């Protein structure tokens, strides 16, 4: 076991923890993608290049894109709803 493994393992745990500790969802998702890339690295250390490839492509890549896209959608809906509410509010008050 190398010092590299220790660092990588600790890095994984830290990435994982910081995903949960972050208050900002966008940052959480980005950290999640970082976690995925670290994990891909881990798989090569475990002599599982297939998994490294899969993790990078699917786990971090595709899941990350899906999550980011959803996050964007949720934000937009929230803004839209807030705008609608204020409009309604103004209409009601006027």
């Amino acid at each position, binding site marked *: 076991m190398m010092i590299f493994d220790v660092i990588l393992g600790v890095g994984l745990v830290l990435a994982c923890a910081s995903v949960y500790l972050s208050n900002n969802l966008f940052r959480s998702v980005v950290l999640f993608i970082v976690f995925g890339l670290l994990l891909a690295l881990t798989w090569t250390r475990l002599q599982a290049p*297939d998994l490294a*490839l899969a993790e990078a*492509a*699917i786990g971090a890549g*595709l899941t990350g894109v899906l999550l980011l*896209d*959803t996050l964007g959608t949720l934000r937009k809906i929230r803004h839209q709803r807030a705008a609608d509410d204020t409009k309604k509010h103004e209409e009601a008050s006027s």
Partner: protein
Amino acid sequence: MIRVLGAALAAIITLLGLTLALWFAPATQVNLPQQVELNIDASGIAHPITAVLLNFRSYDTLLEVAVVLVAVVAGLALRERGPRVTPHERSADPMLQALTRRLLPLLVLTGVYVLWAGSYAPGGAFQAGALVAAAGVLARLAGYDIASRVDRLLRLGLALGFILFLTVAVSAMFGGRPFLNYPDEWAGSLIFLIEAVLTFSIGLTLLSLFVHAPGDASPQGGGDYGR
């Protein structure tokens, strides 16, 4: 507060249990990798992981493809009707346009390589499928509408991999062999064929889960949100 305390308790118990379980794990009595090595020649595939996935434990993979298909069918069921705002407004970005034009062929090419490599080296249908899907997502973001609007064709594309897999698996039974068995001499090529079609279907599936997800457009008059 109670929820956080409960969660912490659950986490601590889990950690404790898992650590103990890992530390004191008894020595295994069965050595599966050995058996994999012994039978790898008969499987028709040189790469052990692909051999496990598509021959020794191909039943798992068949069900796994079914899981992917179910996810996309359930996703399509939740698709919104009415006009969808296409193409994305993001397509105007010239940088993205340029990037896409360069990256797209590369991604597809890599996908094909990964698929082909799967029979003797790391790689295979799922990774390749993900790359194809990534290419599709990129194209989509750039404004190219690849995902077919023709519904039935789309569904055929999604199911094609599963259909081929199931057909090959069942056809063995007509020759009096067990379900999911490959004829010895064709095993390698059949598996490659299945993988190729699976790559396409999985790519399309993941792409359409992305494309057809309910968007952010405000409900049009004809929408069915009131249901």
